[in-house]
């Protein structure tokens, strides 16, 4: 509504109060207006490109199968059909996958945060021989491409007799080098004086770490928590080589199986889209709430494929 009453399309970029003080930057004549209009056009176009697939997913998850096949572009179901949602829970192992994924994600995240902060603290602050080699190894491990470790990880799990167990799903993921690195960087930014006063008060190393330094590292802890949550919730390749038993499938694994395996190539799209949607929701919520920590994680030199 408000937009319609404005003098022209270019004015969209202006400040909401037309006769308010104009900042000099906003007032560069028609050229700048055209620029900002073009800027919005580009932004809106790309926002559509980046978000519309999710809209399609949402819409089609609640369609009947013929409806989804006939109107794949339409975001609104012609008849709201919840049968595929029902079939997700009753006709597939979705609840099982959800349970497994939740277990794996929770344990992996807690483990990663705990171990990463312990090691990060030691590498940042404690003096012990071997500190530098350990840090060098951690940095080197950040560069190891996970995909080439698939067969190797399988070999170790097999040798240790862990293959096809929850331990196989969880233990190898408990530590990740990037988390250690992030924590170390953060601990180095905390002033030493804080710990010194704790020491003077008689706190031991672990006590100092746990009750004094760790609470100060909240932002870094949240970053690592979110990176771990997102990473382990979405993890497919590791579960492919760690387990074989369908009772141990995680959500991504179950989803992949649903698409390529048991239901065959043919259709059932509302069902598949709905299951994918449910798998996306937890990450989406966390993303919306903790957005800036995702941003921080991405700028930590993330290794997304």
């Amino acid at each position, binding site marked *: 509504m408000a937009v319609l009453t404005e003098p022209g399309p270019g004015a969209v970029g202006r400040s909401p109060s037309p006769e308010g003080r104009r900042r000099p930057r906003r007032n560069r004549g028609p050229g700048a207006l055209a620029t900002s209009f073009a800027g919005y056009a580009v932004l809106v176009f790309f926002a559509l490109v980046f978000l519309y697939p999710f809209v399609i997913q949402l819409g089609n998850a609640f369609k009947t199968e013929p409806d989804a096949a006939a109107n794949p572009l339409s975001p609104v179901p012609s008849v709201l059909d919840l049968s595929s949602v029902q079939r997700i829970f009753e006709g597939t192992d979705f609840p099982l996958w959800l349970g497994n994924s939740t277990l794996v994600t929770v344990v992996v995240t807690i483990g990663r945060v705990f171990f990463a902060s312990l090691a990060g603290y030691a590498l940042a602050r404690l003096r012990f021989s071997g500190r530098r080699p350990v840090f060098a190894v951690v940095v080197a491990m950040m560069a190891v491409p996970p995909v080439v470790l698939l067969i190797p990880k399988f070999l170790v799990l097999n040798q240790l007799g862990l293959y096809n167990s929850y331990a196989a799903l969880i233990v190898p993921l408990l*530590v990740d080098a990037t988390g250690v690195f992030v924590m170390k960087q953060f601990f180095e930014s905390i002033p030493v004086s804080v710990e010194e006063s704790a020491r003077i008060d008689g706190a031991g190393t672990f006590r100092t770490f746990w009750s004094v330094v760790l609470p100060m590292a909240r932002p870094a802890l949240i970053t690592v928590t979110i990176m771990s949550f997102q990473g382990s919730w979405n993890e497919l390749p590791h579960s492919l080589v760690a387990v074989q038993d369908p009772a141990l499938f995680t959500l991504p694994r179950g989803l992949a199986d649903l698409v390529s395996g048991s239901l065959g190539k043919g259709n059932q799209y509302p069902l598949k889209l709905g299951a994918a949607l449910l798998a996306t929701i937890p990450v989406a919520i966390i993303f919306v709430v903790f957005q800036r920590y995702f941003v921080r994680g991405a*700028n930590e030199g993330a290794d997304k494929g």
Partner: protein
Amino acid sequence: MATDVLTGSDDPGRTAPAPTPRRTRRRGGIRSAEATAGWIFVVPVVVILGLFMLLPILMALWVSLTDWNGQGSPFTGKVPLVGLDNYTDLFTRDGLARQNFMTSIRNNLYYVAIVVPAQTVLALFLALVVNNRMLRGRSFFRTAFYFPSVTSSVAISVVFLFIFANSGAVNRLLELFGIDGPQWFADSRGVLHILFGAVGVDTPPASLTGDGPFGLPWWEWLSGPSVAMCSIIILVVWTTSGTFMLMFLAALQNVPESLEEAGRLDGATRWQRLRYLTLPSIRPTLFLVLALGVIGSWQVFDQIYVMSQGDPAKTTLTPAYLSYRTAFRDFEYGSGAAISFVLFLIIIVLTLGQRWLLRERDSGRRIRRPRRRGRETGRRS
């Protein structure tokens, strides 16, 4: 290191200087307690990284020299040792193994050649637009572009399977423009072959039918990515550009505004300002994005696993997926491990190349460093 431990001189104001002899650094006094604690703190990380990253690499190196088929343990005498056969099969010996491997290398080369420039340009473009200080709602758009990057690659692949289905959204859109869309995931034709076909070259000229490098005919090397691969390329570019956009954005926000102003005052056009002012100031990030892109592109796996499993006609086979398939579907673990080592080598070389390049650039950097105030300063919504 040892001196650190002995003297502790870098930590002034430490309590209880403990006048005990320095020799006994392992026992008594705060220093050794600290050393013990240090080791205890890093032990979980060292053990798990060692057990699930270092050790496996060595074990796999061994397995790549054997013909292990997954039965029993690969570390007993019963497993036939074949030396470098698995490797020579990939490079020099005529056969299915080499044909598959070279096909996967070809596919991945085309994939890298398209994905990396496309995602970099798109990410940079989006970052430049989002960075525009005159626009409102930038944080919304930033969120929108980044959102696909954080969601599950498997879930996204399911969505794209639907979107690229024969009567899916993409083909419906194409229909609106009067284009008859392809059967995306069933079309194994290479786009270069299609282009050749458009100019009348349907069958390979005689000079190209012969064997090319590594046993794959030249005509096959020159196929371009298949139509099926193109849909995966589109998906990946769509997913990853958000992450790289954020990296560009962080870099752009460290570029002093005065630089842009100065350029404007000197009458530089928009393009000139981008080319001669902005791009040079964010060059390290540009290199980092390119390098991460190349490294990531050689590891494409999830999307292939979910969407095509290497089909149609092996045109979406990549080394990463091929190594998985060879080991876990054909039970040729030795060959699969050999493929992953070759892939490992490719990626290590790329990583080292990136380090080297960045080092060059960093030392050869010109002016305009002083204005930088650390990476964190530019973060704003």
